[in-house]
C-alpha cells in the first residue's frame, strides 16, 4: 500500500471539489454569454467568487480568477511591480523568482528560514518605493514569515507587499496586511487549472493576458469554471490542521538524533516537515522511499523530474546539507497511521544506507 506525503506538490482532490467539478462540467455554458445557459454559468462563477471572498475576508470584486498559482503570482508581480524596485525573498518559489526577473533584489533569510527583517528594513529605506514579494509559507520547509512585521515595514516605507499564499491557503488562516495574495486550486484540494489573485480593496492592476474583458479586464480568457467551482468547494472543507500537526510531530519525534528538521525553530505549516539526513543525497532518499511506496519530494521539481540541490535550504545556510533534505508534506486525508508507516519506511531506508556505506 502506498503512502502519499507530497501534498505540497499537489493535494489529493477533495470529494466535495470533485462533485463541484463534475456538476460544472455537466452544466456547460460560457459565463460571458447572454442567454440562459450563460447566465447559469455566470451565477456559478460569482458564487465561487463570493465564497472565496468570504473565506479570505476579501471583497468579491477583488478576486481575480487565473489559470493557477504561477499565473496569479505573475499577474501581481508584473502588474504591481511596474515602476517599482522588486524585492524578493531568497526562498521564494521559482514562479515568483521568474516573474520578478533577474533584476530583482534578493532579501536574505535567517537560519530558521524566516526573512531577515533588519536587512529588509535597510533595503526598503535605501531607495524608491518597492514591491516586496514574500511567501506566506515556504513550499519546502513550511516555514512561515513574520508577516505582520513585514507588512508594517512595507507600510512605513510606502512599499507594496505581494504574498505568494499558494501553500498557506486552505491550511492556515491567510496572513493579513498584504496588498495581494496568490492562491492555487490544486494545492488546497481542488483540481489543477484554477487559481486566484486576491487584491487589497482599492488596488487595481493591468491584465497580463488581454482578451475578452473577463475578470473586470484583469484576466482575459473564458474562466475555467469547473476548476474554479472545485477550488471554491475545496475551500469550504475543514483544514485538518490540528490532526496533521499531530501526525507531523509524531514523525519528527520518531526520527532519532541523526536527522535534522529544517526551520524547526520557526513557526511552520502544520503538514510540512523538511527532513535532512546528513550525508545521503536527497535523490537517493526520494527514490528509496518511492520504491517502498512512500511518495515524498526534494528540492525544486523541474519538469524533467530530476532532483536538484535545494536553493531554499542553501539560502538557510545549510551548505552541503542542502542536498540531503526531503520534504514530507501530509495531505488532508493522511491516514491515522501515516506517521508509523512513514517512520517504518524511513528507518528501513536509513538502516540500509548505513549498511551499504560501511
Amino acid at each position, binding site marked *: 500500500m502506498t503512502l502519499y506525503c507530497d501534498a505540497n506538490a499537489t493535494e489529493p482532490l477533495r470529494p466535495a471539489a470533485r462533485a463541484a467539478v463534475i456538476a460544472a462540467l455537466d452544466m456547460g455554458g460560457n459565463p460571458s454569454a447572454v442567454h440562459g445557459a450563460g447566465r447559469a454559468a455566470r451565477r456559478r462563477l460569482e458564487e465561487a467568487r463570493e465564497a472565496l471572498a468570504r473565506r479570505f475576508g476579501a471583497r468579491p470584486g477583488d478576486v481575480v480568477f487565473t489559470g493557477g498559482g504561477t499565473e496569479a503570482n505573475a499577474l501581481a508581480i508584473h502588474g504591481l511591480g511596474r515602476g517599482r524596485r522588486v524585492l524578493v525573498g531568497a526562498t521564494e518559489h521559482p514562479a515568483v523568482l521568474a516573474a520578478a526577473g533577474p533584476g530583482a533584489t534578493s532579501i536574505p533569510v535567517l537560519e530558521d528560514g524566516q526573512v531577515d527583517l533588519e536587512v529588509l528594513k535597510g533595503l526598503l529605506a535605501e531607495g524608491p518605493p518597492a514591491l516586496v514579494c514574500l511567501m506566506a509559507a515556504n513550499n519546502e520547509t513550511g516555514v512561515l514569515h513574520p508577516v505582520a512585521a513585514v507588512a508594517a515595514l512595507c507600510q512605513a516605507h510606502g512599499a507594496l507587499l505581494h504574498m505568494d499564499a499558494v501553500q498557506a491557503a486552505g491550511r492556515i488562516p491567510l496572513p493579513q496586511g498584504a496588498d495581494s495574495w496568490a492562491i492555487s486550486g490544486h494545492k488546497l484540494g481542488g483540481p489543477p487549472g484554477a487559481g486566484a489573485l486576491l487584491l487589497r480593496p482599492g488596488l487595481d492592476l493591468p491584465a497580463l493576458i488581454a482578451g475578452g474583458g473577463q475578470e473586470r479586464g484583469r484576466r482575459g480568457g473564458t474562466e475555467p469554471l469547473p476548476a474554479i467551482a472545485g477550488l471554491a468547494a475545496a475551500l469550504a472543507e475543514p483544514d485538518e490542521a490540528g490532526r496533521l500537526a499531530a501526525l507531523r510531530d509524531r514523525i519528527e519525534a520518531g526520527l532519532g538524533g541523526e536527522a535534522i528538521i529544517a526551520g524547526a525553530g520557526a513557526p511552520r505549516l502544520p503538514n510540512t516537515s523538511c527532513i535532512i539526513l546528513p550525508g545521503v543525497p536527497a535523490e*537517493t532518499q526520494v527514490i528509496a522511499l518511492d520504491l517502498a511506496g512512500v511518495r515524498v519530494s526534494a528540492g525544486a521539481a523541474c519538469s524533467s*523530474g530530476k532532483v536538484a540541490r535545494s536553493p531554499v535550504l542553501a539560502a538557510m545556510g545549510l551548505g552541503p546539507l542542502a542536498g540531503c533534505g526531503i520534504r514530507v508534506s501530509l495531505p488532508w486525508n493522511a491516514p491515522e497511521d501515516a506517521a508509523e508507516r512513514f517512520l517504518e519506511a524511513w528507518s528501513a531506508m536509513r538502516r540500509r544506507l548505513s549498511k551499504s556505506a560501511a
Partner: protein
Amino acid sequence: MRILVAMSGGVDSSVVAGLLKAEGHEVIGATLQLYDHGAATSRKGACCAGQDIHDARRVADALDIPHYVLDRESRFRDAVVQDFADSYARGETPIPCVRCNQTVKFEDLVGLARDLGAEALATGHYAQRVDGPGGAELHRAADPARDQSYFLFATTQAQLDFCRFPLGAMPDKAAVRAEAARLGLAVAEKPDSQDICFVPEGRYSDVVAKFRPDAAEPGEIVHLDGRVLGRHAGIARYTVGQGRGLGQASRDGDQPLYVAAVEPGRRRVVVGPRAALPQPEIAAAEVNWLAEPPNLPLSCQVKLRAREVPQPATVRWDAAAGLLRVTPDSPAIAAPGQACVVYDGERVLGGGFIRREAA
C-alpha cells in the same frame, strides 16, 4: 531480483530493461542527465532534459517500471568533460566514454543501486560477463562488430561482479532491434548514437577551447627532422596518426605526412612519414586488472584504439612503475590518452591509458 537498469533512451538499454522485466525481475530504470541538451546543441528553448530522456521515460512507461532522472551535470562536467579537455591540453587523445564508464556510470550507479537495495546494475553495453573461478570475467561481445569491451576495461572487479550486460550474447544489432519491436518499444527504429555525446553538433575542439583555451593556441608544425613546415590553430585538433588538417605540412614533396607526436610544452605538432610512426614498445598507466597481473612477459593480444581488432603482443606488468609495458609483435601506432586493452582471446585481462614515453 531488484535490478537497476541504466537507460539512455536508446534501443539497447531499452531492450535490456524490457528483457529483464520479461524475466520477472523488479526493474528500476535510471537515466543520467549529463549535460544541458539545449546548451550543447545551441538550440534556444530546447528542453533541459532532451529527447533521449523523454524516450527513456516513455519506454519505462510502456514497460510499467519506475524510472528516475538523475542530475549528474556537474559530476559529468568535472569527471569527464574537464578531463577530456585536460587530456588534449597534455597533448593526448582522450577517450571520454571510458572516463564516463569509470566514474558517472559504474562507480556512481553501482553505489546508487546498492543504496536502493538492488542486487545488480544492468547496462546496454555489448560485452559479456562470464562467471569464472575468481569472480566475474569480462569477455568480448558475441557480435565482434558491436563489441564494447574495450570501453569497459577500467571497470573494477567489484563493479563487474555487480554488473550485468544482457546484450553481450546477442548475435547482432538487428536481433536487438527485433527484440525491441517484439517488446513493443517505440525506440526500436531509433538511430544509433554517434560520436561524443556531449558534442552532438559542431566541433569537439570548440568544447576543448572553452575548458582549456591553452589547447587552442596556435603553434608550429615541425618535421621530425626539425624543419618548420607550417602552423596550427591548437594542439587539440591533432592526434597521433592523423593525416588531415595539416595544411601545407601535409606533404613533404611527394611524401604524405602524418602526426607523429603532439608536444604540449612547446605547443608543437610533430609530423613525419608513415613509416616513422609505429613504436616497438608502448607504455600504459592507470592500469586496471580484471585478472591476475602477469609478472612475467605474457603472450596475448592488445587493442590500442576502438576501431581495430586486437593484435598479438607481449605484455609485462611493471608493478614498481605502475606501468603496463607492451611489445606488439609488429610495431604499432599508439596515441597517448587512448586505451590499451589486453585480451586473452575473448577475455579482457586488463588495460590502461597509453602514455607518451619519456623522451
